[in-house]
């Protein structure tokens, strides 16, 4: 075979494989064929760059692959060092010559200069050796060596040939090694990835476990104050920022937001974050209106109201006093609070002051653009200067999962249930729902769901959500406000379009006989009330006891203002208007009295003035007869006995005295008190304590209206009202109808007409009566 053919074949063979062994085999075979050199070695440079290692060998009897040659030693080592081909053809002679020199050195005693003879792989009796560096560009990768035991001539042509083959070998070996390196690298990378993935998975699992524990601890810690502040929505983050900001402030703070949105929690969070050492005093404003005159020590120069407010501030010394539903405080208490705050502002460092170092926080459900009826505007303005809005839950829907998690944990722990999770469907429902009752409603729903749950996966179905919001056939829409006795909701009938108001009344009677009796009495009384047909009696649509044990009743939904609000906001009302309102009230009362039902809590706030179609100043008497019984259970029916009969300022002496036989004339006394207030915006009696007030109803003579009123009060009217205020019911008008008749005869200079009423509403509260 011609050399060219051999070269062509070696090229094809060597490039057809990436296997180092095959490449070497081709190379060695080729050398044999081309030059009849039967002994050949392929050596590759070791990573240390100082040694060559035999990786393939041919023709040697005892030369195993793996032999090593130091770079710089022997023909092969020298070729590696110089990176040049070398042909030595008289190797035996050269070695003999060198050996002779060595012996002469030894004879001359110059052993010290001699090194050790270094055996190198190859033929021990080689006479001819050709070694070629294997180069990739200028980098040495190894040496190719062929040997013969006899001298062999090796001309330029052969040198060229062997160089060509060597280049082919070098490229092929290089490629094979690159391939092998890449393969190993890829394998190592794959293994590393697997290992890394496993480690990451393990670490992730460990971190998740830690995170769950940390989250549980964190939630536990937060739950005490922060329940409603949980979540990651922008709104709640803003709220938390506001809490942090407000915690550093000492200015009075007003929290506004719908019922159930978590105003109390925010107030507590502000207190906790403030680092104040004193207590957090919670004042439920709706419940103290009637009570504030009881048991408050009156200090000199202070009104009873100021003393009451002062006492609350004293309790909260170095702490926080929170006035929940501050607008529900009576006007005079609001005034007193305002005075107290103004005083504190003037003398911020006065330590002797009862208000010294107390943070005051108030809350209201009302939007400040529309001040709540009965609010003392200067107080609201003072508070509103520093205001934080607590958003409704629907505006921070994304927080629902966090809140759900929190409440489920809390309730399940409290109820001793194991709940691991909430089913995805249930969570979707919870997230989709509108939550008119806000977080309070969410809490109630979840509490009930946990209670009835029989699985570790909590389910909240559509019905449970509807029930939470449904009162009888009514679905609660939005909270209209909350107060001492309970919450009032705007509601819609499930099938009828008419709106309704639902009042929920809280009570703390545990299940049992007493409660069952209470429920029966409530139902009997409500049935009577519901039977009232006077258009001036607010209509009762439905009533009952809901799942959470609250009494509720559903009544017609009215837009307008009660007499308390009208007096508070717009001052004393003209006599002709008051007469007109009183007469309508009389018609309502007349029907009730006829059926043996006494209202027992007539007061300006229960005289609601609305518009009915084209009729303005249409009176509806509220809170009729419900949960009012002259029994010993009365006190337990409602959360606070002091608020039962509402308002001492309007209480007839026979009720104060606790007489058993009460008839409609008691309501006439109260109605006269309300009229007195409407005409003067002053109560019949002034007192420093509730007890004092009540005592005066029994003993004191009222100051004649004409002496108190800024406006002209017709003598006739004055006489009628003073008669109503007689201590002895027998000296009062005999009935509501008689009172109505008497009032009908009072002559006024300018009668109160529907037109005047319309005009008044349009001028003073256009939005209330707008259709």
């Amino acid at each position, binding site marked *: 075979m011609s050399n060219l053919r051999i070269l062509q074949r070696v090229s094809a063979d060597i490039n057809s494989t990436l296997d180092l062994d095959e490449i070497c085999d081709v190379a060695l075979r080729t050398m044999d064929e081309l030059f009849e050199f039967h002994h050949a070695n392929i050596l590759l440079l070791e990573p240390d760059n100082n040694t060559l290692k035999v990786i393939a060998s041919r023709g040697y009897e005892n030369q195993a692959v793996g032999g090593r040659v130091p770079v*710089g*030693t*022997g*023909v092969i*080592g*020298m*070729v590696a060092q*110089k990176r*040049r081909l*070398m*042909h*030595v*053809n*008289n*190797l035996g*002679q*050269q*070695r003999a*010559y*060198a*050996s002779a*020199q*060595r012996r002469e*050195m030894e004879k001359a005693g110059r052993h010290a*200069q*001699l*090194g*050790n*003879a*270094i055996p*190198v792989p190859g033929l021990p009796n080689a006479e001819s050796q050709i070694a070629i560096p294997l180069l990739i560009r200028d980098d040495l990768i190894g040496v190719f060596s062929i040997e013969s035991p006899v*001298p*062999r*001539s*090796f*001309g330029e042509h052969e040198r060229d040939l062997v160089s060509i083959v060597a280049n082919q070998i070098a490229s092929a070996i290089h490629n094979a090694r690159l391939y092998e390196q890449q393969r190993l690298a890829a394998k190592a990378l794959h293994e590393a990835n697997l290992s890394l993935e496993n480690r990451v998975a393990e670490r992730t699992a460990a971190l998740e476990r830690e995170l769950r524990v940390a989250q549980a601890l964190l939630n536990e810690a937060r739950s005490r104050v922060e329940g409603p502040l949980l979540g990651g929505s922008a709104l709640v983050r803003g709220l938390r920022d506001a809490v942090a900001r407000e915690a550093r402030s000492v200015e009075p703070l007003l929290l506004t937001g719908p019922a159930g949105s978590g105003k109390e929690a925010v107030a507590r969070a502000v207190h906790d974050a403030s680092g104040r050492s004193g207590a957090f005093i919670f004042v439920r404003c709706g419940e103290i209106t009637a009570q504030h005159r009881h048991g408050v020590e009156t200090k000199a120069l202070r009104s009873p109201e100021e003393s009451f407010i002062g006492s609350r501030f004293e309790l909260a010394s170095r702490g926080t006093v929170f006035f929940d539903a501050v607008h529900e405080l009576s006007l005079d208490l609001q005034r007193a609070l305002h005075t107290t705050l103004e005083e504190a502002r003037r003398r911020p460092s006065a330590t002797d002051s009862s208000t010294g170092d107390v943070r005051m926080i108030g809350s209201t459900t009302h939007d400040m653009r529309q001040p709540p009826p009965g609010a003392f505007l200067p107080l609201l303005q003072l508070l509103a200067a520093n205001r934080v809005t607590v958003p409704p839950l629907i505006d921070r829907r994304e927080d629902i999962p966090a809140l759900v998690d929190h409440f489920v944990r809390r309730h399940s722990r409290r109820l001793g249930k194991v709940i691991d999770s909430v089913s995805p469907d249930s969570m979707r429902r919870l997230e989709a729902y509108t939550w008119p009752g806000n977080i309070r409603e969410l809490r109630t729903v979840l509490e009930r769901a946990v209670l009835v749950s029989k699985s570790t996966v909590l389910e909240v179905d559509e019905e449970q959500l509807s029930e939470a919001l449904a009162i009888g056939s009514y679905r609660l829409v939005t909270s209209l406000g909350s107060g001492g006795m309970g919450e009032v909701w705007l509601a819609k009938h499930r099938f009828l379009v008419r709106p309704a108001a639902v009042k929920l009344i809280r009570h703390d009677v545990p299940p049992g006989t007493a409660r069952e009796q209470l429920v029966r009495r409530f139902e009997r009384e409500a049935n009577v009330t519901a039977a009232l047909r006077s258009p001036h009696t607010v209509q009762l649509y439905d009533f009952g006891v809901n799942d959470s044990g609250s009494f509720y009743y559903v009544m017609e939904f009215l837009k307008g203002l009660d007499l308390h609000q009208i007096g508070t906001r717009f001052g004393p009302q003209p006599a002709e208007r008051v007469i007109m309102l009183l007469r309508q009230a009389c018609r309502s009362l007349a029907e009730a009295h006829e059926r043996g039902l006494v209202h027992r809590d007539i007061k300006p706030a229960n005289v609601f003035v609305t518009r009915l179609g084209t009729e303005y100043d249409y009176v509806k008497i509220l809170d009729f007869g419900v949960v009012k019984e002259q029994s010993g259970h009365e006190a337990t029916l409602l959360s606070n006995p002091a608020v039962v009969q509402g308002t001492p300022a309007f209480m007839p002496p026979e009720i104060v005295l606790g007489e058993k036989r009460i008839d409609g004339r008691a309501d006439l006394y109260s109605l006269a008190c309300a009229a007195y207030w409407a005409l003067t915006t002053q109560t019949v009696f002034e007192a420093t304590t509730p007890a004092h007030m009540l005592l005066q109803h029994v003993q004191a003579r009222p100051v004649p209206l004409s002496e108190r009123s800024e406006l002209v009060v017709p003598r006739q009217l004055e006489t009628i009202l003073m008669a109503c205020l007689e201590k002895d019911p027998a000296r009062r008008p005999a009935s509501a109808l008689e009172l109505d008749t008497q009032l009908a005869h009072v002559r006024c200079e300018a009668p109160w007409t529907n037109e005047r009423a319309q005009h008044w509403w349009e001028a003073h509260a256009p939005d209330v009566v707008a259709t």
Partner: protein
Amino acid sequence: MPMTRLPPEIRPVLENGTPAAMVTCSADGKPNTTVISQVYYVDEAHVALSFQFFSKTIRNVRENPRAFVCVFDIAGLAHWVLQLQFERSETEGPVFDAMDMQIEAIASMTGMSGIFKLRAADIYRVHSVERVQHPRWTASWSNG
């Protein structure tokens, strides 16, 4: 002095590294004969000899540049007679490197590395070259 070109046939003989004998002459006329291990082919007109240590030969050619080399071609039944003239001494370049490489390769194997390092490649011009064929041995030589 006539310019002579080395014939191509001598190149493998030189490259095959057969032993050689060399004669030089000192300035005062004393010839010096030595055996040398290799004559290196440089080009058509030059050969090189190694200068590893000071010797009479090295001194002689620097006094009297004329030299004589006989290269044996044992397998070829011949020897080559070369008349040379010392021209220069090289201590670097391809000729030096090739010679150095070979010397060091052998020395390193025998523990003699660096002891008789190549000091220089002595370059000689070829004045004449002649191949002398040997008579082939016959049995009559022994008998005669």
